[in-house]
Structure formats: C-alpha cells, structure tokens
C-alpha cells in the first residue's frame, strides 16, 4: 500500500469526499492534459500564424503521404481501443490480460512512431530541413517538424509510461487506476493527432 493509500485509508470517515469523485492522481492527469492541450493549441496556432503569413507556403504532401497519415490514424485510434481493453481487464483484476493489452497498445505506439519517422526521412531525403527546403517558405520545415515532433515525443513518452505501468501492474506494484490514468493520457495523444492530420497534412496536400 502506498503512502497516499495509507493516508486515505487512515482518514476514511474523517476526510471530506473528493469534490470530483475521482482519485487525486486522476485529477492530476486531467490537469496535465488540459495544460498540454493548451501547449499543443499554442504550437498549432503558431504554425497557422507562420503558414498564413507566408506568401509561398509549399503544398508538399503527395497522396502517398496522405494515405500514410490515414494508416497512422488507424493505428493510433486502434491503440486507443486496445488501451480500453487494458483498463477493462485491470478493473476485472485480470493482471495478465491488462498487461497483454497494455503491451499491444505500446506496440501500436511504436509502429506509429516508425511510420512517422519514415515520413520524416522521406521529407528530409527530398531536401526539407528546419529552415530551408526546395519548395517555398523556409519556415515549412520548422513548423512541420515542431508540430509532428512534439506529438511524436508524446507518443514515445506514452509508450515508455505504458510499458513501465504495464510491467508494474503485472508485478503487483501498481493498481488498476494507474492503467486507467495512463489510458487517459494515451487517448489525449490520439486526440491531438486528430487535429494534426487535417491541419498539417491535409491542408498541405498537393493540389
């Protein structure tokens, strides 16, 4: 039992009920998510600002890149479903099942990152750099790599967290709520991608 659990158990009947009827750790994850939503919002607005200000913004994405982004969406949304299976198994105290689904979710994240890195390498191979490219506004690379790089960092961070929590839950170090809390984070990463695809890929497709 953790120090926090002991404090809560000790204070049962004395402490006021949580105003939001959720554990503090889950509330903290929600607070992190809304602050991160504002961070991604700011980055996407900055991208929009730069794109709108540039007279020669390049429209570089061929249909292959668009279909690749759709495949990445399929993988990420599917991993949101598998993490729900992990939460359901954890709530049923099925430790092996929760571990299996958590690892499948993490594998989805790794696959997503591989496809994303392949997309990056393709653009870099065509001459895209942070502040130069052969197509138009030199800020394209800075905007594209910043937005997608920040998202990919969240995906990779989520993969590490899911593996750690999955292993810890299997070993009995973590409770079901820890799986649920990181599932929340994983859904948020999925949610951000729902805005990255239309704003960064679809608006910049070749016409």
């Amino acid at each position, binding site marked *: 039992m953790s120090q926090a659990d002991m404090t809560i158990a000790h204070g049962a009947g004395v402490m006021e009920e949580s105003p939001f009827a*959720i554990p503090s750790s889950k509330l903290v994850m*929600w607070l992190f998510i809304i602050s991160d939503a504002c961070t991604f919002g700011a980055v996407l607005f900055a991208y929009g600002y730069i794109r709108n200000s540039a007279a020669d913004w390049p429209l570089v994405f061929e249909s292959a890149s668009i279909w690749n982004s*759709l495949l990445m969406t*399929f993988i990420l949304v599917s991993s949101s479903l598998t993490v729900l299976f992990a939460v359901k198994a954890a709530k049923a105290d099925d430790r092996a099942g929760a571990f299996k689904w958590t690892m499948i979710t993490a594998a989805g994240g790794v696959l997503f990152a591989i496809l994303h890195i392949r997309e990056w390498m393709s653009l870099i191979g065509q001459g895209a750099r942070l502040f130069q490219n052969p197509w138009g506004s030199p800020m394209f690379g800075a905007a594209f790599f910043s937005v997608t790089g920040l998202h990919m960092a969240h995906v990779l961070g989520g993969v590490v967290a899911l593996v750690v929590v999955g292993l810890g839950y299997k070993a009995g170090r973590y409770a079901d709520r820890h799986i649920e809390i990181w599932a929340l984070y994983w859904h948020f990463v999925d949610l951000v991608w729902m805005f990255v695809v239309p704003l960064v890929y679809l608006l910049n497709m070749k016409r």
Partner: protein
Amino acid sequence: MSQQSGSMGSMFIVYGAILAIAVVQVVVAMTMGPSLGRMLVLALIQAYMAVMFFMHLRDEKPNLRLALLPGTLFVLVMLNMIWADSFRLIVMRPFAK
C-alpha cells in the same frame, strides 16, 4: 471514481465513427479541397467523441467537466487573437524567400 457506464459495444461504435470521419476527411480533402472550416468541424466531432466516450468525461461528475472544459476552451479561443497580426504580415511577406 467515474461510473464508466459506456459498454465495450458503444466503444466499438465510437471507434468506427472516429475512423469513418478520418476517411471522410481525406476523401473530402481530395475531392472538394481541404477547406480549413470543413477539416476543423470534422476534427472537433472526432475530438468530442474521444473525450466524452474514450476518456469517459461524460461519466464523470458535472463539476469536473465544469472545472476542465471552460478554462481550456477560453485559452484556445483567446489564442485566435493572433490572426489579425498574421494577416497584417501577409502584406509585409516576412517569410517569403
């Protein structure tokens, strides 16, 4: 703790709907052109479903929704004040080659 009332059956429906909207987004962008308004509306529908069903916010107490959503939406709406300056810069073309 949330009631987590959403059954796995409804989660499959939400999963299918989010993926269907993603396909519609691509088809609309390829056939009608990627209008910012159309793309954002479809993304907002996806996001609403993800937050309410996958993240179970609809099952939480209303005061949690009140604590989280208005402040976040306020920040995101206030960020729109940058557009006036962005349109001003089009005339100056600072990022052109």
